[in-house]
C-alpha cells in the first residue's frame, strides 16, 4: 500500500498516454451510449419512506443501480432477477467487454505478463476491476469476484505477484466465482501468484531439518477454509504444510508456470484434522488435503458467516448462518446455491441500509448512479488508493475488512470525490448530469426530492430535505444548482449506507 501511492503519483505524471488513447476511447464511449449504455430518457424513482426492495437488491447483489435498473428488477421480479444473475453466461455483456477488454494484462498467460512494467500492470489491473464493476450487466458475478478476491487475497506488491495476479484473477477467482468451492480452493492452491504470495514456492522438505514453510498451510486452514476457530491445531498446520511441499513456480523457460518437484516433497504419511494422507502420495497429497479442508464442517460455517456478513450485515444473524452453512454442506460447496440461500432470505430483505459502503463500492456505486462514462484512468484510480482500497493492494492475506469501523476515517475523501464527480472535476470521467436530471424529473419544482430518491432509493426525511433546500438558498433551479444537490446527496450519510 505504501509503495503504490508513490507509484501512482509517478504514473499520473505520464498523463500523455491519456491523450494518445483518447481517440479510440471516445469511439467506444460513443458506440456504447448508442447501444444503450447510457441514462434512459425517463427513470421512475422510488418514493417510499423505506429503501425500495429492488434498489436494495441491486445495492447488495451488485454495485448499486444504474439509472433504469430498479424498474428493470421490478419488471422481472426479484427472485427471477437473482436466478438470472446466478447464471451469468447468457447475460449479454458486450458493452462492458468493449471497455474492459482493452486491458491487455487480462488476455495474457501467467508468464507473459513479465513483459509489462509494474506501473503498467498495476494500472491495467485496477482499471479492469473497476470497469467490470461499473459496466458489467453480470453484477452479482462481479460482486462475487470481489468477495473471493478478498477471501483469497493476494497483494501484488509482494515478489513477482504483480505479474502472476492477472492469471489468478482469471483462472481462479473469475473461473470459479459461482462454481464449486472445492474447485476454487484447489485452483488457488497451485495458482502461481498464491505460491509466491504465501511462500508455497519456498515450502520444501529441508535437507537437514524437516521444517516446512507453514505460511500457506496456515492460511489455507485459518482464512480460506475452516476459519480460525474451526478446530485445527498447530500440528495440523505443520502437517498440512508438509503435504504441500514441492510445488514451485518456474523462473526460466515457461516462466510463471507451476510444476511439482518430487525432490522437494515430503512424501511420508501426514495426519491432518484426524485424517491420514498416506505415504507415497506425491502430487496427489494436495488433492487429499484440499478435500479434507473443504469438506470439514467448520468450512461450511466459516464461508456462510463471511457470505452473510458480506451480503446481509456485520452483526451476522446466527439463524441465517446455520441455514446457509446447511446449504453449503448439502450441496457439497455449491457457491450458486449457497449465495441464493442468502439473497432470498428474510434476513436479507430486512437489512436495508444496514451496511457502510467500503470505498471501492462507494466509488463504483456513485459512477453507476450518475451513469458515468469513463475508461478508469489514473485520476479515478487515485481516489481508491487515497481512501485505502486500491485494487489488489491489501497487504495481508485476510483481505480488505468487511466492517464499518476501519472505513469511517474516509468520509472527507468521499466528500471530495462526490463534489468532483458532480461538477466534472474527475479527469477522465464524464457525468451526463443534464440528461439524468431530465430522466428522473428533477427539472421542475423540488429537484432535491427526485434526486435524493434516485440516489438513495427512498424519500428524504424532513431534516434531510431541509438541509438540501437550505443549501440551494436563493439560487434558481437549473443545472448548476442541481450539481450542488447531487454533490451533497452523494456525500450524505444515506449514500454511504447500503
Amino acid at each position, binding site marked *: 500500500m505504501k509503495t503504490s501511492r508513490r507509484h501512482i503519483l509517478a504514473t499520473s505524471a505520464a498523463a500523455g498516454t491519456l491523450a494518445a488513447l483518447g481517440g479510440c476511447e471516445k469511439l467506444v464511449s460513443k458506440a456504447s451510449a448508442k447501444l444503450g449504455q447510457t441514462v434512459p430518457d425517463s427513470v421512475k424513482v422510488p418514493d417510499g419512506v423505506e429503501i425500495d426492495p429492488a434498489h436494495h437488491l441491486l445495492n447488495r447483489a451488485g454495485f448499486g443501480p444504474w439509472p433504469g435498473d430498479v424498474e428493470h428488477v421490478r419488471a422481472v421480479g426479484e427472485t427471477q432477477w437473482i436466478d438470472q444473475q446466478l447464471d451469468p453466461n447468457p447475460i449479454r455483456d458486450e458493452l462492458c467487454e468493449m471497455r474492459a477488454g482493452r486491458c491487455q494484462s487480462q488476455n495474457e498467460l501467467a508468464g507473459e505478463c513479465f513483459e509489462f512494467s509494474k506501473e503498467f500492470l498495476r494500472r491495467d489491473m485496477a482499471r479492469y476491476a473497476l470497469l467490470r464493476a461499473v459496466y458489467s450487466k453480470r453484477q452479482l458475478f462481479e460482486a462475487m469476484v470481489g468477495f473471493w478476491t478478498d477471501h483469497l487475497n493476494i497483494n501484488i506488491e509482494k515478489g513477482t505477484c504483480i505479474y502472476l495476479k492477472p492469471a489468478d484473477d482469471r483462472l481462479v477467482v473469475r473461473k470459479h466465482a459461482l462454481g464449486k468451492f472445492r474447485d476454487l480452493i484447489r485452483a488457488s492452491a497451485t495458482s502461481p501468484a498464491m505460491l509466491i504470495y504465501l511462500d508455497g514456492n519456498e515450502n520444501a522438505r529441508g535437507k537437514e531439518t524437516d521444517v516446512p514453510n507453514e505460511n500457506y498451510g496456515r492460511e489455507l486452514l485459518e482464512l480460506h477454509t475452516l476459519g*480460525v476457530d474451526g478446530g485445527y491445531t498447530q500440528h495440523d498446520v505443520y502437517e498440512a504444510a508438509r503435504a504441500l511441499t514441492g510445488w514451485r513456480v518456474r523462473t526460466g523457460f515457461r516462466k510463471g508456470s507451476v510444476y511439482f518437484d518430487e525432490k522437494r516433497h515430503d512424501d511420508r504419511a501426514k495426519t491432518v484434522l484426524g485424517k491420514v494422507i498416506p505415504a507415497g502420495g506425491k502430487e496427489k497429497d494436495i488433492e487429499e488435503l484440499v478435500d479434507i479442508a473443504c469438506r470439514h464442517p467448520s468450512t461450511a460455517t466459516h464461508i456462510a458467516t463471511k457470505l452473510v456478513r458480506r451480503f446481509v450485515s456485520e452483526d451476522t444473524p446466527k439463524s441465517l448462518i446455520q441455514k446457509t452453512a446447511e446449504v453449503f454442506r448439502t450441496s457439497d460447496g455449491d457457491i450458486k446455491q449457497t449465495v441464493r440461500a442468502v439473497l432470498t432470505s428474510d434476513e436479507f430483505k430486512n437489512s436495508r441500509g444496514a451496511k457502510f459502503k467500503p470505498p471501492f463500492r462507494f466509488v463504483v456505486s456513485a459512477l453507476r448512479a450518475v451513469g458515468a462514462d469513463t475508461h478508469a484512468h489514473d485520476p479515478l484510480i487515485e481516489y481508491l488508493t487515497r481512501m485505502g482500497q486500491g485494487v489488489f493492494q491489501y497487504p495481508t492475506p485476510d483481505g480488505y475488512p468487511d466492517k464499518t469501523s476501519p472505513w469511517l476515517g474516509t468520509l472527507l475523501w468521499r466528500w471530495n470525490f462526490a*463534489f468532483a464527480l458532480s461538477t466534472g472535476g474527475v479527469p477522465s470521467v464524464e457525468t451526463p448530469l443534464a440528461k439524468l436530471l431530465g430522466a428522473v424529473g428533477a427539472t421542475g419544482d423540488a429537484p432535491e426530492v427526485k434526486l435524493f430518491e434516485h440516489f438513495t432509493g427512498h424519500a428524504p426525511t424532513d431534516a434531510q430535505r431541509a438541509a438540501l433546500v437550505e443549501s440551494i438558498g436563493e439560487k434558481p433551479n437549473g443545472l448548476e444548482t442541481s450539481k450542488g444537490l447531487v454533490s451533497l446527496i452523494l456525500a450524505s450519510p444515506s449514500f454511504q449506507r447500503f
Partner: protein
Amino acid sequence: MREPVGTRRGFLRQLVFGQLPFVENPGARTLVCIFLRGGADTLNMLVPVGDGDYYRNRPTLAIAAPSKGTKKDADAAIRIDDFYGLHPKMSPLEAVYKEGRLGFVQAVGSDNTSGSHFEAQDQIEHGESYRKNIGGGWLGRHLRSRIGGSDSPLAGVAIGPTLPESLRGAPAASALHSLDELQLPVSSGDPKAVSRALSKLYEAEVGIIGKQGKETLDLLRRVEQLRGKAYQPLAGAEYPADDFGAGLREIARITKANLGLEVACIDLGGWDTHFLQGIPLGGQAELISRLSRGLAAFDADLKGHRDRVTTVVMTEFGRRLYENGSTGTDHGRGFALMAMGGRIHGGKVHGEWPGLKEEPSLPGPGGMEVKIDYRSVLAEILSGAVGNARVAEVFPGFEPKKVGIVGA
C-alpha cells in the same frame, strides 16, 4: 494547596491517590504506538549474542557477535551489554539508548496460541485475553478513561488511510496522512455553505456514521489555521524519506502544534519473514533501518517535548527460535518490546531472559516463552508515562505486574 499540574510531585500524588482527576490540558501528554505488522523477529534486533543456542538455532540467519576489540564490524551486532547487542542497522538508536531514553522489555507477549497474525494483532489491539472479547480497542478505552481528555477528532490519530482496531471505540479519532490534505472540496464554491449543509445532513443521521461526519467537520475547522504552513523539524532530525518517516514527522508536527493529540498510531508492515529474512542486508535489515532512522529522527525532533511524548513499538508475536528450510522464520510467541521517551527508564533491557529452548508442552507455536503479559507493559506506560490514573478501565479484569520500564 494543590500541587501545580504537571510537576513530578503532583504526578506522584496522583499515582498514590489514584482517584484524582487528571487535569493537564488535553494533549499535554501524547502516546505514540508503532505497530510492526507481521510478527517481527526481535531476536535479530535485540540480539542475545551471549547465548550459544542462538547461533546453533540459526546457522545462516544469526547476527554475528561484536568483535572483542575496539574496531567496529559493520555486519556485527552493536554491543550494549555483556549479553545483548543491537542489529547493526539500529546504529541510529545507539545514542538514544545509551542516553537512557530508549529501553527494551524482553519476552513480552500475549496468551494467544493461535499463531494467527490477525487474531494476535486483534487481541493485542483490543487489549484483552485470548478469546475474551471485552469490546473496543485499548487506546479507545484509554481515551475514554482519561478524565479531562477531549473529544477532539485529533485526540486519536492514525497515520494512514484507515483506523486500527486499537482505536476502536475512541470518543473521536481520525485517519490521515498529513494535516495539509484535510480540506473540503475546493470545487464547491462556498465551503462554508457546504460545511453547513453537510453538518445538517450528518446531524440528521443517528449512529456512528453521523457521529463520524460531525467529527470530520470539526477536524476541518481545527486545522484551518495550520494548513499550508510549512513544518520545519529541528536540526538533526532527519526522517527517512518514506511514508513511515513522513508519518512520524507529521505526528511531531501535530504534537508541537498543541491540537490536543493524545494518541497517535502508525504501522510499519512487512515483518512476516518466512522466506529469505536476510542477514545483515535483505528484507528485515531494510525494515530495521527504516524503523531506527525514523525513531532517531523523531527523538531528535522532539527535543524539549520528550517528557510529554512516549513512544511504544510492538508487534503481534515474535518468531521461532530456529530458522526454517527457506532461510526465514515462522510464527513464534514472545518478542522484545521497545519504548522511547523522557519518562522511559531506558538504557536497559528489562525482563528476564527466558532462554532459547522451545518448550514443546506449551500450547501454540513454539518460540520464545512469554514471560511478561503485554498489558503489564502498556499499563505501566499509561499510568507512569502518559498519566492515566484509571488504567483498570483500560484493561478490565487484568492485574498488571511491575515491569520497570517507566521511572527510575
